């Protein structure tokens, strides 16, 4: 399947783009996507344990299954206010 990764806030800087396409096996979960992203950015890899994830505008678990056309948002540590 093909999904789109949204790189929000500081994640834009880690990947150099706002959006990133990922090609994943049909059984992929959020965790599968994370593992592929870890190979792309050392800065992401360093911060990853502190990230949250959202799938198609809903908060997602690392075990949440992905689907063709899914939008996975990376939610780095927040600084609202």
């Amino acid at each position: 399947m093909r999904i789109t990764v949204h790189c929000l806030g500081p994640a834009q800087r880690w990947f150099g783009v706002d959006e990133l396409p990922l090609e994943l096996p049909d059984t992929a979960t959020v965790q599968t996507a994370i593992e592929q992203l870890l190979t792309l950015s050392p800065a992401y890899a360093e911060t990853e344990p502190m990230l949250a994830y959202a799938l198609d505008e809903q908060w997602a678990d690392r075990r949440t299954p992905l689907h063709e056309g899914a939008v996975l948002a990376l939610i780095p540590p927040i600084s609202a206010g």
Partner: protein
Amino acid sequence: MERIHEGPLPWVELMASFAAQPAEGALASFAGLVRNHHQGRAVSGIRYHAHRGLAARELAAIESAIADQHGVRCALWHAVGDLAVGDCSVLVLVGSAHRAAAFAGCRDAIEAIKARLPIWKEERFADGSTAFVAGVPRAGLQKNG
């Protein structure tokens, strides 16, 4: 007005229109304003990035939770985009018959916003450089929610 608002919040107008409730004797508010300094550096402005859909839903959820837990009326807004020093980035308004609940609701709301909203500050410094503020891992993850 949309809870997630492009540009500085018109907080004075928002307060004036929120207030007209004859049963309420207490109105507590918190306005977050862009400061001209952070950790010893001169700041000239902040760009707020957001996951708008999730941030709007979180604000609505916090409003409801504060209203239920404290028995108050609560309204929340957060700005996104470019703000200058002195601009209002976040506004909490809580109306109540009595002041204790108004204060408690106001305090809890801003703490929840800072712990839960998927929003990121990118500071612009006097020398023209920019940097994202070091954040905190999002609290209270509602997984699969």
